[in-house]
């Protein structure tokens, strides 16, 4: 499915930061969403299944935070998931991308 858009979102196109040593615990997670975005629901569903807490920023309810989402992701799309680790490093995951999301929140 190399010709379609969603595939790139799933696979992600931001490089994952290299981690030295063991995994660093997650401090908090923020997801930028909209009401109509099915992939936003999937990210929330996945975190819900795993029992992981997150903060949701719904851009339909808070359009004033769109610029923040765009600055963080460099894109005009949702979902954008920001995983902040205990050492304050951040991993930004664009789209519903289990290959990136699962290890980032593990």
């Amino acid at each position, binding site marked *: 499915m190399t010709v379609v*858009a969603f595939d790139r979102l799933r696979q992600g196109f931001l490089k994952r930061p290299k981690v030295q040593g063991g995994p660093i615990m997650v401090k908090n997670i923020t997801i930028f969403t*909209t009401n109509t975005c*099915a992939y936003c629901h999937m990210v929330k569903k996945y975190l819900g299944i795993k029992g992981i807490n997150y903060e949701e920023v719904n851009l339909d309810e808070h359009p004033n935070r769109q610029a923040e989402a765009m600055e963080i992701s460099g894109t*005009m799309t949702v979902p954008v998931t920001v995983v902040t680790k205990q050492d304050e490093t951040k991993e930004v995951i664009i789209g519903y991308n289990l290959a990136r999301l699962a290890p980032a929140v593990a």
Partner: protein
Amino acid sequence: MSDKETQVPKHDVIIIGSGPAGLTAAIYTTREDIETLMFERGAVGGLAAVTDKIDNYPGFPEGVEGLKLADDLRKQAERFGAVIELGEVTAISDEGEYKRLETTSGDMLAKAILVATGSDYKKIGVPGEQEFYARGVHYCATCDGAFYRDKKLAVVGGGNSAIQETIFLTRFASHIDLLVRSTIKASDVLQQELEEYVKNGKVTVHLATSTQNIVGDTSGVKSVTTQKDGKNKEFEVDGVFVFVGLLPNTQFLKPTPIRLDEIGFVITDQNLHTSMPGVFACGDVRCGATMQIASAAGEGATAALKIREYLEGHMHPIQN
């Protein structure tokens, strides 16, 4: 057989894809008490889930939001025992009674497989499309439309999806140029609805207009260059949404003996059986599919009943 091999999970049926076709099949297989596992790598509900509103699915006189239909189908399948695994099937192979699936959750075995992976939107293949992907070029209005409040957009396409999503995007955009390569192929009802937005100046339709180039800079898309009757014309827009048809999600089947057509759609017989025994296909991924949600659901039901016949060892021969 090694210890490791004996630990490979075995299932009666694995359905790959959880769009309307796959979920309907799961409703039927689980109600027949056939143990069923589903795999979904994207959104449960498939393209239906990312469609704003669906007006042609029976039983919903006022239409239904795609996300709601997808969620209700999921609940119905899960109510009867279907299990949806969030992950991807990367390869399948025939081992006789069982088929082996390589997945992101490890290897699995299934007596029957249903390929219901659907299709995704095609790209138009013009300069700038890749460069500005998700930064001004989009394929999902319900995901990304909210970024274009009071901004100018172009929508490329003239089929049902293009018109439906253009209408959805009018709730955000100040104006939309609809760029149609030939003529509008959408249903009459959608065309009538679109006409209201044309009359009030929200949408301008440009027929026989091919998109040539998407132009922008580091801040995003600035314009679209088109061609009509040999003449170039530039539209100043902040973003472009593309809905120009569908391509099947069958990359993972290409190394297998399963027959695909020249585009990549799965070829089946009248029982929805592929060229690999025990592997069936239904919905938008199937050669000959009508790309309608109602058809996909119908094929899902048919596939489930044919799988039951296959598992019981008395599949009816094809009547020519």
